């Protein structure tokens, strides 16, 4: 969305239509009306000099063809939906706490009844208790409004808590995807295994978090073959030469790893922290 960024290749399909490289007139129809966005930090995404109600009104009037007199009712409705006191629409963004501000962001995204809501790290900046509240709201809304939600996050516990399906990406490529239960409980790609190790788990003793050694590659000059190979404890010589294809099994669980068929054994080995040492 940044003006300097562009879609270099591939395809983005939305409601049956190709929208990668679609002309502005097509995008104009889709943006916010069918597809809305919740930013990582609503603090920066809300204009500091306008009351939040005003900013929702702007969308309703300019994009939703609402009549001015219907606006207050709709805003009150949206505020109640996300668990905010409708009176607070007369406050400025800086007067809200972090969690409340994310709720404003969600209300704003829901303004025109979109079919899809994309949330970029929607709770990362919040403390854990507030995270839970906001995520509960999201879950509830998703069910009630028959809404599709894409959450972009680094936090596996968020995925585990709210998502149905997950796509794991590494260095700009999809490495694994499938139902959350399948992917998190029986990961096939070593990166996903590493990720599940690197996050706290109620079932595991504290203090056994295992980081993945190394750092992501320079995307201007990605390594040949599998992009994860340089950091992968299970990498074989062929991994550095051949790019693994994304292979989907009968359950819809896909992974891009040359050793996918050895997954059960690798999972066993991946539990050993020594494996992940640099």
């Amino acid at each position, binding site marked *: 969305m940044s003006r300097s960024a562009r879609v270099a290749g591939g395809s983005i399909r939305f409601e049956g239509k190709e929208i990668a490289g679609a002309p502005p007139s097509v995008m104009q129809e889709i943006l*916010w*009306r069918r597809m809305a*966005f919740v930013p990582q930090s609503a603090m920066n*995404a809300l204009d500091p000099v306008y009351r939040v109600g005003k900013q929702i009104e702007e969308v309703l009037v*300019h994009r939703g063809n609402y009549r001015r007199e219907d606006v207050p009712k709709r805003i009150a409705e949206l505020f109640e939906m996300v668990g905010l006191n409708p009176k607070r629409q007369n406050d*400025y963004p*800086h*007067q809200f706490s972090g969690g409340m501000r994310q709720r404003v962001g969600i209300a704003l995204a829901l303004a025109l009844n979109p079919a899809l809501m994309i949330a970029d790290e929607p709770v990362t900046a919040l403390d854990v208790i507030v995270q839970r509240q906001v995520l509960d709201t999201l879950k509830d809304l998703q069910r009630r409004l028959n809404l599709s939600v894409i959450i972009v996050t680094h936090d596996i516990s968020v995925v585990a808590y709210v998502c149905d399906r997950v796509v794991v990406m590494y260095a700009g490529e999809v490495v694994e995807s499938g139902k959350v239960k399948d992917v998190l409980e029986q990961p096939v790609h070593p990166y996903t295994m590493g990720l599940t190790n690197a996050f706290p788990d109620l079932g595991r003793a504290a203090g056994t978090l295992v980081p993945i050694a190394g750092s992501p590659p320079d995307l201007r000059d990605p390594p040949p073959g599998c992009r994860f190979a340089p950091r992968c404890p299970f990498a074989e010589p062929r991994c550095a030469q051949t790019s693994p294809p994304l292979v989907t099994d009968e359950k819809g669980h896909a992974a891009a790893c040359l050793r996918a068929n050895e997954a059960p054994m690798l999972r066993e080995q991946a539990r050993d922290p020594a494996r992940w040492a640099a």
Partner: protein
Amino acid sequence: MKSVLSRFAQMLFVLWVVATILFLMFRLMPGDPTAAYIDTTFTEEQQQQLRAAFGLDQPLWKQYFIFIANAAQGEFGESFHHRKPVIDLLMEVLPNTLVLTLSSIIVAYIFGVLVGSWLAWNRGTRAEAIVVPTVLTLRAAPEFWLGMVLLATFGFGLGWFPSGGANSAGAAYGSEWSRIFSSDFLHHLFLPALTLALYLQGLPLLLMRSNMLDVMQEDFVMMARMKGLPEWVIVLKHAARNALLPVMTAFAIGIGQSIGANVVVETVFSWPGLGRLLVASVAASDYPVAQGAFLLIAAVLVLMNFIADLLYSVLDPRVSHGARR
């Protein structure tokens, strides 16, 4: 409310310190300190009268209190040369200075804001490569020299404008307002106001340009784009509204600074204003007038700094509406 009061108190404090510095300056000058008030051509009786009126026969600390008390009431004594109260002289020229300053600064800021936004929009184009260095050059030119070149070209050379003053000799007007709105006055005003405007437009232009460029990078502008809002709403209501904040402050401060800095332009165009009065009175050792003019210029400057402060808090809700958490 409390912060407004404390800012106001701070403003009075600054004003008081400035007045004190002025008092000390005029007392520290070589020679008889009473010369600031008393012309040697006064008769002994007149001198005694004035000494008593200003408490100049009192010790220094008492004189200081009398000075401050008088200054607070706008009482600066009597001019040596014009033989009339300083305050009357100041009030005679103040409208000229205000009209010159305000007209030029308003034109400069409207122009600067518009062109600055336009440049931000046309980042990296040929227009930018031409306009920005031109603006920098205009800002680097001494105002009075700019005035001299304009005066020599359009005043003396082409004869389009009068060579100086605020009104043609012999013109009479019913009231101050009819004088200021007479075509004769405006004709005299044009060149000095243009000179000042040319000098002043650089700051708002460059400020607006860089603010716009900064604001355009903000998340909320990107969000406005994602919302699919019309381009004019994004530019005017979000980008420009935010970018204008610091420009408004600069505008208020600029008025205050301009009143004092106008000295040179007023001199070039023989504009009968406060600055020219100050220069003339200092040159002629007409100290009561110099003191009065200086203090009035300082008062406007301090007042405008105070207003700039207030303006910012009014226009920026982050300051005017404290956090409620």
